[in-house]
């Protein structure tokens, strides 16, 4: 295990807690993504890992050594920011070699050339940051962080200043590079697509708590909390009544679920995979196409079902239904496996 975080707790003011009881770990070479809406405290967590913020409680261990209160410069953890934070008064070469210390000048230049080549920046060696495009600046920032060969690099919303197409290519390149060099990384992002794209494991931070940690597939298909079902999942529920023995009565019929006995009224989570669309007359519920959008391989439809008086949104289908067309919607209750307490 490379990095272990146990029960980390942080607050800026006594009454204003940023997060608490935060625990997760990272294997050597693993890429971890921390996903959460803005203001959820994920940047503060990163600052704690880098050593710029002091947690009030808990422990951070890197390679078996406790580093919770170690000065940032002694941790050997790389850092890449959203705004790149290149040193504007230093050239690309000087930026990249800035973190190379206690090695000969020759070795410095060699390492720099190696990175310039790796990042396709050879022609920019002598340029200054303001002469580079956003994508190039970002590559320099990553090269600078990688130069001292840290075992862990933290990326703070590192791609959000780039335009979408560039973001995607750079992400893939970087992922390959991290794998090649066996460097571990923690990415912080508010962009779900980015998290799914990058992270082998994803942690979702919300309301000061780590809601769920796991592979993208698990987060998507079996959210553990209502927030997760809303944030990552389909955000579609139906109200049900629990008989106390695992049987939930809903408008869709009775569904067998594993839930706590004392829950009475529940929100039954409907994952995307439970829905299917059919031509009129071929499915379970009568409905009408209310919205459609083309997604490349498939379409996404919002369907209104009068019988349930409910909209079902973002249903994927490869067929081209017309706007306003009558369709049928089937809901496979076999795919339904979660329900959450209903508070309202």
């Amino acid at each position: 295990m490379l990095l272990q975080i146990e029960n980390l707790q942080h607050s800026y003011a006594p009454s204003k807690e940023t997060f608490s009881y935060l625990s997760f770990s990272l294997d050597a070479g693993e890429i971890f993504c921390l996903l959460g809406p803005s203001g959820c405290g994920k940047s503060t967590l990163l600052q704690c890992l880098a050593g710029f913020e002091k947690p009030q409680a808990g422990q951070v261990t890197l390679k078996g050594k406790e580093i919770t209160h170690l000065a940032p410069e002694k941790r050997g953890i790389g850092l890449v920011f959203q705004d790149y934070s290149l040193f504007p008064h230093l050239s690309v070469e000087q930026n990249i070699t800035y973190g190379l210390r206690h090695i000969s000048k020759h070795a410095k230049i060699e390492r720099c050339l190696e990175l310039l080549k790796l990042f396709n920046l050879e022609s920019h060696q002598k340029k200054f940051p303001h002469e580079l495009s956003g994508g190039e600046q970002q590559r320099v920032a990553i090269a600078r962080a990688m130069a001292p060969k840290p075992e862990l690099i933290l990326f703070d919303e590192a791609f959000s200043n780039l335009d979408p197409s560039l973001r995607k290519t750079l992400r893939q390149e970087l992922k390959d590079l991290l794998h090649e060099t066996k460097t571990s990384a923690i990415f912080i992002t508010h962009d779900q697509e980015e998290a799914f794209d990058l992270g082998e494991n994803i942690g979702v931070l919300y309301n000061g708590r780590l809601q769920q940690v796991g592979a993208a597939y698990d987060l998507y298909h079996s959210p553990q909390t209502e927030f997760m079902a809303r944030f990552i999942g389909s955000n579609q529920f139906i109200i049900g009544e629990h008989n106390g023995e695992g049987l939930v009565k809903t408008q869709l019929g009775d569904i067998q679920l594993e839930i706590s006995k004392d829950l009475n009224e529940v929100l039954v989570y409907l994952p995307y995979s439970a829905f299917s669309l059919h031509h009129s007359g071929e499915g379970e519920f009568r409905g009408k196409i209310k919205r459609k959008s083309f997604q490349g391989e498939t379409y996404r439809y919002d369907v209104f079902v009068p019988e349930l008086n409910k909209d079902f949104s973002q249903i994927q289908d490869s067929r081209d239904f017309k706007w306003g067309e009558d369709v049928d919607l089937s809901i496979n209750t076999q795919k339904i496996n979660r329900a959450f307490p209903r508070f309202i």
Partner: protein
Amino acid sequence: MKSPRLFLGAISLLSFGPILLLVLKSFAPEASDENSWNFVLTSMVPELIVNTGTLVILVSLFTSFLGVSLASLTVFTNLPFKKVFDYLFLLPITFPLYVLAFVYVGMFEYSSSLMTFFRDDWGLNLNAWIDIKSVWGVAFVFSLGLYPYVYLLSKNAFINTGERMIQASRALGHNPRETFLNVILRYSFPWVLTGTGLAMMETLADFGGVSVFNYDTFTSAIYTAWSGLYSLSSAARLSCFLLFIALTLYLFETRMSRRARHVSLGPTKRHQLLREFGPLGKTLVLIFALSVVSLSLVIPLSQLLIWFFESVSYEWSSSYWSLIKNTFFLGLIAASVTATLALGMVLAKRVDRSSLSQALCSISLLGYALPGNLVAVAVFLYFQQFKPHVPSFLSFLTAPLVLLILGYLIRYLSVSYRAQNNALKALNPNFDKVAKTLGVGSSRIFKEITFPLISPAFIGSFVLLFIEVIKEMPMTLMLRPFGMNTLAVRIYELTSEGEWQRASIAAVLIVVCGMLGTLLISRMDDKKHM
């Protein structure tokens, strides 16, 4: 669009013409004056170069040390009472150098009460240790008044460096000290140098201060040639020397401030401290900060006030009312003329964006880099040249008062121009377009949109100009209409006779006006940011 260009042309003829003529005249002098020039060249110029050079270099060293160290203390450490100190570190800028100079010279006089106190009560003869009139003394006192330039610019640059860049450096293995040296200081270097450059320019331009110290530099030599030797051409040629040095410094300063406009990261409000001092360290930096404040502010101000109350009974007379009246009269007229013409320039340049008008603006603003003595000589020569050709019904245009106002205009035009230009630049150019698409004419746009939005800058620059003019000494001394004495002139007369105590009255009046004005401007700035 001819008229904006004509206007800018006329302004540059007024403000740059005299400087150009000065250079031409110095190369083609009247033969009759060769003797006195030979005297000046052989017996004065070498010493002047050494004196001026040493002073400027020492001041640059002292001010950068004080400015940078104090700025790093207020930005990056847990120095106690930071906010108060931040304000106190800036205040010395309101002292005219000649006031600071005569207070220190007076304090260190053998018979002064302070020296007597040390000698009689403590058995300490400070005069044996400290020669305030040596170049070290002059440079030290000047630096006390000029370090705020470096402080202000360094502080802004330090804050501007941004937390992210500091974090990036530390994550790459550099400790706080290395980060400060390698990233923060190197990044801020152009700003620090700009501040130092300003302090050097002020030193070069100073006349009142060096006169008090009897320390001969180019400015005092120009005055001597002018009033002692009555040799206009020697004064002109000395001015030409000074012009060369001043322009070199000016180019240095503009180059640095251009480099300082590097891409900067957005300033972050919360700044992590790089250094948290323990009790001992805290005490030491507190002592350092307090001694700077005492030397630059508390001691001179107290001495000034003590002298003021000691001498007010016998020195104050009704003649001061006329001094105050003259000073304010000059201040108001010069500030109105200058601020209005600067507004005209700003607007003209907004309409006519050609490179010609850009160039005309630039040469018109050159005067701020030039010492007052030099400008006075240039203006005088300029009028002397044209006076015979002016028809008699326009002869009022060559009155001494007009010369003096023109001198102020040349010297301070850029103060007002910059303030108003920055305000106008911040104005979205689409405002004009939007207003025009709504069918509004140019004059209404000016009256209802442009002027209301830049009027705070106009008024602010007016106040700034007023302060500058009332404390201005060399031009007022050289160009004033006969008998029109001002507070600054009074200080010159009294200090040249060593009457420090009596000079304190005029000095207090000037300092108080300056502080009130500065307070007014900072209040206006605060409002603007709300």
